């Protein structure tokens, strides 16, 4: 195979592998795809990892062949592009490896690697778009790079040489490495201690709702109806609800689509208090909850909600729930995925037959939603 053909196939292989990584990564990263492929989450993650290893092996194979190419092409732009691709490959490989190992003893480091991995993946999309556009313009002869004169790559005024590009990238990688290493051996910083309460949180809430507009909470008119197979059906105002015994504890929130928010402080009313208040009839084996959005419902076995940590929550991290979090009242069950923690609860019905909840009916989610 002649050199030109070899470069073509290497370029194609590199491009295809990056495309596969971007596609599989998008399923793990973008909410819409995560929900769409929720049942195959772990398989997709494993596929992404496997392609990552193949990509790394391909880069190792390509790299020795790229050096003669760089030597043969004197334009600094080409060198820049190749240096950038090598930098991305190094970045993805290192951060991907860290995420694959998943070191739970280094929570901050892991989170940083995830952020870098995601950022590089978003960056490559923009870069590839520009790369393809340039290729298209050249093909249509709308843009032609000027040929270089004999000594143009040497330092003359602000002319940039290939040497400068290599210096920039190698020095840049070294600077990142040294910056991280230098920090690693530093003592605990005051800024870190000041943020320690926030640092316990790893991740962030991604807001899902099944309607475009969230229900609005008006303390004057809001009521929680608790009825069905109970001895004493009640309708509680928010003030009346606040008078019930409360409980506070800290627990992670896990979404079935793969993201988590760690160390969330939940404050609310243990559901057992609601059962005590209304008196469950023996035939009421199940509980159905309704959301004020008039669409979302969830069902539970009554015994699943008797542990103290299964709560009707109104405060999150010492602040009242905001509208998108389900204000004023939502369920939280620490052992179940987030889709079971119904938001904007305004009615609780004790029933003798169990129905499917919103996602169980729509997408076939597990009825109990226990975190596996």
């Amino acid at each position, binding site marked *: 195979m002649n050199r030109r053909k070899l470069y073509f196939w290497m370029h194609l292989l590199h491009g295809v592998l990056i495309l596969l990584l971007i596609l599989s990564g998008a399923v793990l990263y973008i909410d819409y795809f995560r929900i769409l492929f929720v049942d195959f989450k772990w398989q997709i993650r494993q596929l992404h990892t496997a392609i990552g290893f193949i990509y790394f092996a391909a880069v190792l194979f390509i790299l020795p062949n790229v050096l003669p190419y760089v030597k043969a092409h004197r334009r600094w732009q080409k060198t820049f592009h190749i240096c950038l691709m090598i930098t991305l490959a190094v970045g993805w490989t290192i951060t991907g490896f860290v995420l694959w190992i998943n070191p739970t003893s280094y929570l901050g480091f892991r989170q940083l690697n995830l952020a870098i991995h995601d950022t590089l993946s978003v960056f490559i999309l923009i870069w590839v778009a520009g790369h393809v556009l340039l290729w298209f313009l050249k093909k249509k002869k709308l843009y032609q790079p000027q040929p270089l004169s004999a000594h143009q790559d040497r330092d003359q005024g*602000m002319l940039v040489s290939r040497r400068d590009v290599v210096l920039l990238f190698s020095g840049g990688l070294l*600077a990142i490495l040294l910056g991280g290493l230098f920090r690693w051996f530093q003592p605990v910083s005051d800024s870190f201690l000041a943020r320690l309460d926030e640092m316990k949180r790893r991740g962030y809430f991604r807001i899902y709702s099944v309607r475009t507009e969230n229900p609005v909470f008006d303390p004057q008119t809001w009521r929680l109806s608790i009825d069905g197979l109970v001895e004493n059906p009640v309708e509680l105002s928010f003030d009346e609800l606040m008078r019930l*015994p409360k409980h506070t504890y800290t627990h992670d929130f896990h979404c079935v689509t793969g993201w988590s928010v760690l*160390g969330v402080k939940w404050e609310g009313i243990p559901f057992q208090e609601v059962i005590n208040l209304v008196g469950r009839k023996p035939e009421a084996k199940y509980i159905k909850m309704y959301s004020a959005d008039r669409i979302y419902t969830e069902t539970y076995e009554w015994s699943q909600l008797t542990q103290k940590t299964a709560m009707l929550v109104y405060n999150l991290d010492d602040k009242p729930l905001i509208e998108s979090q389900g204000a004023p009242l939502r369920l939280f069950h620490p052992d179940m995925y987030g889709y079971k923690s119904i938001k904007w609860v305004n009615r609780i019905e004790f029933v003798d037959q169990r129905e499917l909840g919103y996602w169980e009916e729509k997408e076939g989610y597990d009825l109990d939603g226990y975190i596996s």
Partner: protein
Amino acid sequence: MGTYLKYAIVVGIWALLFGASFYWMTSREEEQLLVIQKAINNVEDWQSYQSKQTVWADDEQVFEMHSKTRLNPDLTQVSSKAKLTETEDFTVEMFFSSDVIYLHTENPETWKKADYTHPVAGELEGSREPTKFWLRLLKYTEQIKRQSENGIQHYSLKLKPFREEVHGMRLEDVTGATMEIWLNEQPLVLQKMKVHVELKPSITKIFNQMDYLIEFSDVNQPIEIELPSAAEKAEKLQ
């Protein structure tokens, strides 16, 4: 001139990358602090456990508290003994159910009860949630050292001066403090924590140093706690 400018830009980019990496990275000690914080927070997730808290003032034991906690059904039993004089102790037993707190003293034999809206409820609840004090202490960390042996991680923290309160003992004018934490590595389970506090000598103080130890046991093991029948006759706390 152009060459100088070019290299100045290159060096500037390097400096920027160095700074960004330094800023976003966490140090080894900070990572260790996050692990400790996570282990302490995990206590709230335990389904059941026992704890023993002991306080020494100038090497003399002045306070002891035992607690048994079970989350489901929810009941916590706390018994504490505080030294009043050389010959006198004050003992009290508390039971925390989901809606009522029961207080029991032996001499004289009395049972009182209060709900969670009572003004003293907040303070009483502090005795069954012992981790809050330790989480606050982490914010005073100056230096951390870690040793690992037989699956146990032992952390030694040097703390900056702070103002706190431990079971009614005010800690002011702290000149130095150290905190030790023992964690089981796999799974991550908090075993015990100890803090040693040195106070500035003063004629108004009755002690110059304090040690406070909390030990956890029987984590997620079946624990028998029973509310005595005498509690049914408890009077409402005024």
